């Protein structure tokens, strides 16, 4: 087995290449269905252009969108030493090899080091467990959709209606900016930080896998149907495809709180996962391991 830092570095480069140059099958399938069913002519032109673009990216093995985003990593399973160092190295190598656009800048001076590295990037979430493998998932997410994220500390009395209202308002306010059709991630409960993490994590679940919780599954499909009646349409130019899906995750919260986070993901809903086994063998999947 390679030194684990080098192994993680290589896995990170491969993962990023897979993630930014192609779309998971569930997302692609949903886009194809939408193109068939869209009734607005301008809307259909947008969806057709998107599909042609994805095919061209695949053919040329280049990023599907120039905004290769900021990177969020989700690590689970077995703990690997020097994982973070491996990811950092892989990320800076991928920036020039894949390539990724150098997006990371200082938040105040806006200086761009040009290699996507700097204090606090990338974001890495850990969820270690006793397992035979380490799972690394990356979600590159562009600013167009990330900038539309919303966190609201609702009052418990606002309840389910308040949650639905927030989701609807967020999607309407975002209009064409997050490159619809979007996937809507909703995090309900927890603390403020946890709600946003849940909303983002919710986006990892493939569109063809329902929520195991019956109530949340019903909420997801109710919201999806309603949001597609707004008329915002692909790119906000009108039509019936505003969202490809809604994904909801929840956590217990304080008796006096109801944090709700909404995180929109653009049609370029990129993600990829790798499983690193004890012997160093690696398995990749765009859809993730579900």
């Amino acid at each position: 087995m390679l030194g684990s830092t080098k192994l993680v570095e290589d896995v990170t480069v491969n993962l990023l290449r897979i993630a930014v140059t192609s779309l998971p099958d569930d997302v692609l399938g949903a886009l194809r269905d939408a193109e068939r069913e869209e009734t607005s002519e301008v809307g259909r032109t947008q969806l057709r252009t998107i599909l042609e673009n994805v095919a061209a990216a695949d053919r040329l093995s280049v990023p599907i969108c120039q905004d290769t985003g900021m990177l969020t990593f989700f690590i689970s399973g077995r703990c690997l030493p020097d994982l973070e160092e491996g990811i950092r190295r892989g990320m800076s190598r991928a920036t020039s090899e894949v390539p990724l656009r150098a997006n990371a800048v200082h938040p105040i001076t806006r200086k761009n080091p040009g290699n996507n590295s700097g204090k606090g990037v990338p974001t890495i979430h850990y969820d270690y467990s006793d397992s035979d493998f380490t799972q690394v998932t990356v979600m590159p997410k562009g600013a167009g959709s990330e900038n539309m994220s919303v966190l609201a500390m609702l009052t418990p009395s606002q309840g389910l209606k308040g949650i639905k209202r927030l989701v609807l308002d967020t999607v309407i306010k975002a209009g064409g900016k997050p490159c619809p059709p979007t996937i809507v991630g909703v995090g309900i409960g927890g603390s403020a930080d946890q709600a946003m993490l849940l909303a983002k994590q919710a986006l990892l679940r493939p569109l063809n896998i329902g929520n195991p919780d019956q109530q949340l599954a019903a909420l997801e499909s109710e919201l999806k149907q309603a949001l597609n009646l707004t008329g915002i349409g692909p790119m906000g130019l009108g039509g019936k495809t505003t969202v490809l899906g809604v994904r909801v995750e929840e956590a217990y919260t304080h008796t006096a709180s109801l944090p709700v986070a909404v995180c929109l993901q653009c049609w370029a809903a990129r993600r990829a996962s790798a499983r690193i086994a004890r012997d160093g063998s690696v398995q990749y999947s765009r859809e993730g391991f579900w």
Partner: protein
Amino acid sequence: MRLKTPLSEKDVRSLKFGDEVTLDGIIYTGRDEMHLRALEYAREGRELPFDLHGAVLCHCGPMLRNEGSKWHVIAAGPTTSSRMDSMEPQFIEHFGVRAIIGKGGMSQPTVDAMAKHGCVYLAHTGGAAVLAAEGIKDVKRVEWQDLGMPEAMCELEVESFGPLIVAIDAHGESLYKRVDETVASNLPNVRKQLGI
């Protein structure tokens, strides 16, 4: 419809919102930092590296690869135009651009400036960066590189660049406004569906 740059006022006044067009000729990229600097130059009476009269401005931060002395475009989709909203009316008036390519639309002051000075907004499919790059035949010059690659100002030669939708025309009509009206009229029904 195919349009060729530079564009005249007559060219753009003849377009109507909802039209689909493709572009041939030259386009210039510019985002937040480029707008800030260009307007600063304007205040100081300094010349820009490019003459933008009759030009097409593209809200885009392309991914370029430098191979020897030549730049290559890898991906070049549009960025969210509303970030430039506060600067665009002045930009249109001062520099005389005739078309702006972007995504997501722009606000009323920009719509008004477009009607007044003769300029249109062309919506490009957000994220469709590879198709956009295929429409770019040559990177002629890259200026203001110190702003970082996404923010630099590039002169690009394009062919059949698009499809672009005339989303704001030079007569004060906006497809986004129309969609907003549709959304507003759909809203009571959507709320009812959700029981809110």
